[in-house]
């Protein structure tokens, strides 16, 4: 269903900026031909920037982001199952921004920033932090609650997918901007031995 400003979409282009890591860190260029962010490598305490994408609120951006997230998760050493979960969580988060925060309106800004974070304890290894930022509507409290899965009805599963996939899901709003922080750690001890 076309949003009120769908006509503007044709004029909008997906702009994806990729932060390339140096070869010594084991990172390759993720999307050849994309523009790199023109700023020095960001290192905030235990965080290291891996990738920053500046997108527009167009559903066609979803497949691009899924592809990029799959590469990022693989490069950070996540298993195939963990990688699928991360891709799913970020995809659902981005779809929520497009569909709810921006109410389906195209051409509006979304930033996705992926950083390498340290685990900080014996069970958690290095992790991936993904931060999505937008300037859309604030989420309603009911939208952040999720829903009962026993109920057979369409919709309301996105948040459940995010929480199932990630170790941390934090939503904040500040200065008219929404910020969703998703973190997943590589688990060093097999789940069956954690009691």
């Amino acid at each position, binding site marked *: 269903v076309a949003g009120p400003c769908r006509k503007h979409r044709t004029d909008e282009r997906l702009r994806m900026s990729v932060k390339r890591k140096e070869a010594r860190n084991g990172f390759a260029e993720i999307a050849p031909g994309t523009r790199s962010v023109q700023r020095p490598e960001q290192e905030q305490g235990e965080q290291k920037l891996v990738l920053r994408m500046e997108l527009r609120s167009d559903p066609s951006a979803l497949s691009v982001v899924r592809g990029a997230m799959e590469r990022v998760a693989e490069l950070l050493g996540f298993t195939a199952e963990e990688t699928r979960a991360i891709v799913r969580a970020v995809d659902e988060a981005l779809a929520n921004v497009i569909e709810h925060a921006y109410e389906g309106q195209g051409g509006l800004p979304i930033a996705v920033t992926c950083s390498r974070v340290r685990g900080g304890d014996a069970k958690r290894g290095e992790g991936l932090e993904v931060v999505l930022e937008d300037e859309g509507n604030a989420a309603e409290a009911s939208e952040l609650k999720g829903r009962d899965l026993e109920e057979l009805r369409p919709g309301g599963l996105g948040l459940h*997918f995010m929480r199932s996939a990630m170790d941390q899901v934090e939503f904040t709003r500040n200065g008219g901007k929404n910020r969703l922080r998703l973190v997943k750690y590589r688990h060093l001890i097999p789940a069956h031995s954690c009691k």
Partner: protein
Amino acid sequence: VQIAARSSDGLIILDITGDIDLAHSPQMRKLLMSEIKEKGTPKVFLNFTHVRYIDSSGIASLVEGLKASRDKGSRLILYALNKNVYEVMQLSRLQKIFEIYETEEQALTS
């Protein structure tokens, strides 16, 4: 996403190719609802062999289709789901709600 249709007496098979996400689930939903609600097709099969990914909007479209088929007394049958798609069905706790088969042969003889 591309959807091709194969039909026979009382049934239709929709061969879906691509990712069923927010960009493409409306197309699948429209076709599904047309077969179930408007045409009243007794058996609608969805072939997922070439579906790499499905998101919650795709699942919502399937649930809507399932509810419509129950209302009509018809059947909505899914088959050949890959690991990624089946995981999403499990996460949604829908793997036992939908009729799901491994192969087309199993689905058609069900």
